[in-house]
Protein backbone atom coordinates (compact mmCIF):
# COMPACT_ATOMS: atom_id res chain seq x y z
CA UNK A 1 0.00 0.00 0.00
CA UNK A 2 2.86 2.37 0.75
CA UNK A 3 4.34 1.90 -2.72
CA UNK A 4 0.89 2.17 -4.26
CA UNK A 5 0.41 5.51 -2.53
CA UNK A 6 3.89 6.66 -3.55
CA UNK A 7 2.94 6.01 -7.15
CA UNK A 8 -0.47 7.63 -6.76
CA UNK A 9 0.92 10.75 -5.10
CA UNK A 10 2.81 11.59 -8.29
CA UNK A 11 -0.51 11.88 -10.08
CA UNK A 12 -2.34 13.94 -7.47
CA UNK A 13 -2.46 17.67 -6.98
CA UNK A 14 -2.92 19.90 -3.92
CA UNK A 15 -5.88 18.75 -1.81
CA UNK A 16 -5.98 15.19 -3.07
CA UNK A 17 -2.23 14.92 -2.53
CA UNK A 18 -2.54 16.07 1.08
CA UNK A 19 -5.38 13.61 1.74
CA UNK A 20 -3.52 10.68 0.22
CA UNK A 21 -0.27 11.63 1.93
CA UNK A 22 -1.97 11.54 5.33
CA UNK A 23 -3.31 8.07 4.62
CA UNK A 24 0.07 6.87 3.41
CA UNK A 25 1.58 7.96 6.73
CA UNK A 26 -0.84 5.64 8.53
CA UNK A 27 0.25 2.77 6.30
CA UNK A 28 3.84 3.49 7.28
CA UNK A 29 2.74 3.19 10.92
CA UNK A 30 0.97 -0.10 10.12
CA UNK A 31 4.07 -1.50 8.52
CA UNK A 32 6.23 -0.47 11.47
CA UNK A 33 3.91 -2.27 13.89
CA UNK A 34 3.69 -5.37 11.73
CA UNK A 35 7.45 -5.50 11.36
CA UNK A 36 7.87 -5.23 15.11
CA UNK A 37 5.50 -8.14 15.72
CA UNK A 38 6.36 -10.52 12.90
CA UNK A 39 9.34 -12.78 13.37
CA UNK A 40 11.66 -12.94 10.40
CA UNK A 41 13.03 -16.40 9.62
CA UNK A 42 16.78 -16.62 10.17
CA UNK A 43 18.77 -15.88 7.04
CA UNK A 44 15.99 -13.74 5.63
CA UNK A 45 17.36 -10.44 6.81
CA UNK A 46 18.37 -9.30 3.36
CA UNK A 47 14.85 -9.58 2.02
CA UNK A 48 12.23 -7.06 3.04
CA UNK A 49 9.47 -8.14 5.37
CA UNK A 50 6.33 -8.49 3.35
CA UNK A 51 3.38 -6.99 5.15
CA UNK A 52 0.50 -9.45 5.22
CA UNK A 53 -1.71 -6.98 3.40
CA UNK A 54 -1.56 -4.46 0.66
CA UNK A 55 0.28 -6.26 -2.06
CA UNK A 56 2.32 -3.58 -3.71
CA UNK A 57 1.77 -4.35 -7.33
CA UNK A 58 -1.33 -6.43 -7.77
CA UNK A 59 -5.04 -5.89 -7.43
CA UNK A 60 -7.20 -2.94 -8.37
CA UNK A 61 -5.37 0.23 -9.18
CA UNK A 62 -2.08 -1.41 -10.06
CA UNK A 63 -2.07 0.16 -13.48
CA UNK A 64 -4.05 2.04 -16.03
CA UNK A 65 -5.17 4.80 -13.71
CA UNK A 66 -5.19 8.39 -14.79
CA UNK A 67 -6.57 11.56 -13.33
CA UNK A 68 -7.03 12.34 -9.62
CA UNK A 69 -10.56 10.96 -9.48
CA UNK A 70 -9.51 7.65 -10.98
CA UNK A 71 -6.41 7.47 -8.78
CA UNK A 72 -8.44 8.09 -5.62
CA UNK A 73 -11.07 5.62 -6.79
CA UNK A 74 -8.47 2.90 -7.28
CA UNK A 75 -6.98 3.60 -3.86
CA UNK A 76 -10.44 3.32 -2.31
CA UNK A 77 -10.96 -0.08 -3.90
CA UNK A 78 -7.52 -1.24 -2.78
CA UNK A 79 -8.15 -0.07 0.79
CA UNK A 80 -11.48 -1.85 1.04
CA UNK A 81 -10.04 -5.03 -0.44
CA UNK A 82 -7.10 -4.91 1.99
CA UNK A 83 -9.48 -4.42 4.91
CA UNK A 84 -11.60 -7.39 3.87
CA UNK A 85 -8.53 -9.54 3.28
CA UNK A 86 -7.15 -8.84 6.75
CA UNK A 87 -10.41 -9.76 8.43
CA UNK A 88 -10.42 -12.97 6.44
CA UNK A 89 -7.01 -13.88 7.83
CA UNK A 90 -7.83 -13.45 11.52
CA UNK A 91 -8.71 -17.04 12.35
CA UNK A 92 -5.17 -18.38 12.08
CA UNK A 93 -3.46 -15.67 14.11
CA UNK A 94 -2.39 -15.50 17.75
CA UNK A 95 -4.65 -13.19 19.79
CA UNK A 96 -2.50 -10.07 19.94
CA UNK A 97 -1.69 -10.21 16.23
CA UNK A 98 -5.37 -10.77 15.45
CA UNK A 99 -6.13 -7.59 17.37
CA UNK A 100 -3.52 -5.67 15.40
CA UNK A 101 -4.85 -7.03 12.10
CA UNK A 102 -8.42 -6.12 13.08
CA UNK A 103 -7.37 -2.62 14.03
CA UNK A 104 -5.47 -2.13 10.78
CA UNK A 105 -8.42 -3.55 8.83
CA UNK A 106 -10.65 -0.98 10.52
CA UNK A 107 -8.18 1.78 9.70
CA UNK A 108 -8.10 0.73 6.05
CA UNK A 109 -11.89 0.78 5.87
CA UNK A 110 -11.82 4.36 7.18
CA UNK A 111 -9.21 5.22 4.55
CA UNK A 112 -11.56 3.99 1.84
CA UNK A 113 -14.36 6.14 3.21
CA UNK A 114 -12.08 9.15 3.66
CA UNK A 115 -10.82 8.91 0.08
CA UNK A 116 -14.38 8.44 -1.20
CA UNK A 117 -15.50 11.60 0.59
CA UNK A 118 -12.49 13.51 -0.69
CA UNK A 119 -13.11 12.33 -4.26
CA UNK A 120 -16.77 13.29 -4.11
CA UNK A 121 -15.89 16.74 -2.80
CA UNK A 122 -13.79 17.44 -5.91
Amino acid sequence: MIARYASALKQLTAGAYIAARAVQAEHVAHLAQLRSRLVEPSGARSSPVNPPHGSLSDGPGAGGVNGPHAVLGQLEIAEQAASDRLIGELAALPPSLAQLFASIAASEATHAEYLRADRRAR
Partner: protein
Amino acid sequence: MMSASGRAGQARSSQQQAIAKLQDALAAEQAASYGYGVVGAHLPQGSARQGAATADWVAHMRVTDELVAMISSRGGQPAPAAVAYQLPEPVQTATAAVALAVFLEDRVAQAYLGVVALPDSGLRSFGAQQVRAAALRAAAWRGSTQAFPGLLAIRPNG
Protein backbone atom coordinates in the same frame (compact mmCIF):
# COMPACT_ATOMS: atom_id res chain seq x y z
CA MET B 1 -3.58 -36.72 26.63
CA MET B 2 -6.46 -34.79 28.12
CA SER B 3 -9.30 -36.60 29.86
CA ALA B 4 -12.95 -36.10 28.94
CA SER B 5 -13.47 -34.07 32.09
CA GLY B 6 -10.39 -32.02 31.25
CA ARG B 7 -11.77 -31.27 27.79
CA ALA B 8 -15.15 -30.38 29.24
CA GLY B 9 -13.48 -28.05 31.72
CA GLN B 10 -11.49 -26.40 28.95
CA ALA B 11 -14.63 -25.91 26.85
CA ARG B 12 -16.41 -24.42 29.85
CA SER B 13 -13.55 -22.06 30.51
CA SER B 14 -13.44 -21.02 26.86
CA GLN B 15 -17.19 -20.37 26.92
CA GLN B 16 -16.86 -18.29 30.09
CA GLN B 17 -14.06 -16.31 28.52
CA ALA B 18 -16.22 -15.64 25.46
CA ILE B 19 -19.16 -14.58 27.62
CA ALA B 20 -16.92 -12.19 29.60
CA LYS B 21 -15.64 -10.48 26.43
CA LEU B 22 -19.14 -10.29 24.99
CA GLN B 23 -20.31 -8.72 28.26
CA ASP B 24 -17.55 -6.12 27.93
CA ALA B 25 -18.72 -5.34 24.41
CA LEU B 26 -22.32 -5.20 25.62
CA ALA B 27 -21.37 -2.74 28.36
CA ALA B 28 -19.62 -0.53 25.78
CA GLU B 29 -22.64 -0.69 23.48
CA GLN B 30 -25.02 0.16 26.31
CA ALA B 31 -22.86 3.12 27.29
CA ALA B 32 -22.76 4.23 23.65
CA SER B 33 -26.54 3.97 23.36
CA TYR B 34 -26.91 6.18 26.43
CA GLY B 35 -24.20 8.54 25.24
CA TYR B 36 -25.75 9.07 21.83
CA GLY B 37 -28.87 10.33 23.55
CA VAL B 38 -26.71 13.08 25.03
CA VAL B 39 -24.93 13.64 21.71
CA GLY B 40 -28.18 14.02 19.77
CA ALA B 41 -29.67 16.37 22.34
CA HIS B 42 -26.79 18.82 21.89
CA LEU B 43 -26.74 18.91 18.10
CA PRO B 44 -28.87 21.34 16.10
CA GLN B 45 -32.44 20.08 15.76
CA GLY B 46 -33.02 18.56 12.32
CA SER B 47 -29.38 18.90 11.28
CA ALA B 48 -27.49 16.29 9.30
CA ARG B 49 -25.32 15.69 12.35
CA GLN B 50 -28.32 15.02 14.53
CA GLY B 51 -29.54 12.61 11.87
CA ALA B 52 -26.16 10.89 11.93
CA ALA B 53 -26.33 10.64 15.73
CA THR B 54 -29.74 9.01 15.47
CA ALA B 55 -28.50 6.54 12.86
CA ASP B 56 -25.49 5.65 15.00
CA TRP B 57 -27.66 5.30 18.10
CA VAL B 58 -29.88 2.85 16.23
CA ALA B 59 -26.81 0.93 15.03
CA HIS B 60 -25.68 0.53 18.65
CA MET B 61 -29.13 -0.57 19.76
CA ARG B 62 -29.19 -3.23 17.04
CA VAL B 63 -25.82 -4.65 18.03
CA THR B 64 -26.83 -4.50 21.69
CA ASP B 65 -29.74 -6.81 20.84
CA GLU B 66 -27.40 -9.08 18.94
CA LEU B 67 -24.97 -9.27 21.86
CA VAL B 68 -27.78 -10.05 24.31
CA ALA B 69 -28.78 -12.98 22.10
CA MET B 70 -25.17 -14.16 21.74
CA ILE B 71 -24.58 -14.10 25.50
CA SER B 72 -27.86 -15.84 26.24
CA SER B 73 -27.23 -18.56 23.66
CA ARG B 74 -23.94 -19.33 25.45
CA GLY B 75 -25.69 -19.72 28.79
CA GLY B 76 -24.76 -16.30 30.11
CA GLN B 77 -26.94 -13.68 31.73
CA PRO B 78 -26.65 -10.40 29.78
CA ALA B 79 -25.88 -7.55 32.17
CA PRO B 80 -28.57 -4.88 32.16
CA ALA B 81 -27.74 -1.33 31.12
CA ALA B 82 -27.10 1.20 33.85
CA VAL B 83 -29.68 3.91 34.47
CA ALA B 84 -27.06 6.57 33.71
CA TYR B 85 -23.39 6.73 32.80
CA GLN B 86 -20.60 9.06 33.86
CA LEU B 87 -19.57 11.14 30.85
CA PRO B 88 -15.87 11.86 30.32
CA GLU B 89 -16.58 15.59 30.11
CA PRO B 90 -19.68 17.72 30.60
CA VAL B 91 -21.53 18.15 27.31
CA GLN B 92 -23.05 21.57 26.76
CA THR B 93 -22.15 22.38 23.17
CA ALA B 94 -22.29 20.74 19.76
CA THR B 95 -18.49 20.51 19.74
CA ALA B 96 -18.51 18.65 23.05
CA ALA B 97 -21.25 16.39 21.72
CA VAL B 98 -19.14 15.44 18.72
CA ALA B 99 -16.15 14.80 21.01
CA LEU B 100 -18.37 12.51 23.10
CA ALA B 101 -19.42 10.57 19.99
CA VAL B 102 -15.76 10.04 19.09
CA PHE B 103 -15.01 8.92 22.66
CA LEU B 104 -17.92 6.45 22.65
CA GLU B 105 -16.89 4.90 19.35
CA ASP B 106 -13.27 4.58 20.44
CA ARG B 107 -14.42 2.77 23.58
CA VAL B 108 -16.64 0.46 21.55
CA ALA B 109 -13.78 -0.38 19.16
CA GLN B 110 -11.53 -1.09 22.13
CA ALA B 111 -14.10 -3.45 23.68
CA TYR B 112 -14.54 -5.41 20.45
CA LEU B 113 -10.80 -5.95 20.17
CA GLY B 114 -11.27 -8.09 23.28
CA VAL B 115 -13.69 -10.24 21.28
CA VAL B 116 -11.16 -10.44 18.43
CA ALA B 117 -8.65 -12.00 20.83
CA LEU B 118 -10.95 -14.97 21.52
CA PRO B 119 -10.07 -18.30 19.88
CA ASP B 120 -13.50 -18.78 18.26
CA SER B 121 -13.14 -17.74 14.61
CA GLY B 122 -16.77 -16.70 14.30
CA LEU B 123 -16.48 -14.38 17.29
CA ARG B 124 -13.21 -13.02 15.97
CA SER B 125 -14.80 -12.13 12.69
CA PHE B 126 -17.82 -10.60 14.43
CA GLY B 127 -15.52 -8.57 16.68
CA ALA B 128 -13.46 -7.35 13.74
CA GLN B 129 -16.57 -6.28 11.83
CA GLN B 130 -17.68 -4.29 14.86
CA VAL B 131 -14.25 -2.69 15.32
CA ARG B 132 -14.48 -1.62 11.70
CA ALA B 133 -18.02 -0.27 12.09
CA ALA B 134 -17.02 1.73 15.19
CA ALA B 135 -13.89 3.06 13.46
CA LEU B 136 -15.97 4.23 10.50
CA ARG B 137 -18.41 6.04 12.78
CA ALA B 138 -15.55 7.54 14.81
CA ALA B 139 -13.81 8.76 11.65
CA ALA B 140 -17.02 10.37 10.42
CA TRP B 141 -17.37 12.28 13.70
CA ARG B 142 -13.68 13.06 13.98
CA GLY B 143 -13.29 14.09 10.36
CA SER B 144 -10.06 12.15 10.08
CA THR B 145 -8.77 8.59 10.23
CA GLN B 146 -6.63 6.80 12.79
CA ALA B 147 -3.87 4.28 12.20
CA PHE B 148 -4.91 1.94 15.02
CA PRO B 149 -8.57 2.19 15.99
CA GLY B 150 -9.23 0.64 19.38
CA LEU B 151 -5.59 -0.06 20.11
CA LEU B 152 -4.95 2.70 22.56
CA ALA B 153 -1.53 1.43 23.48
CA ILE B 154 -0.17 2.16 20.03
CA ARG B 155 0.53 5.72 19.14
CA PRO B 156 1.64 6.43 15.57
CA ASN B 157 5.04 8.07 15.60
CA GLY B 158 5.37 6.99 19.20
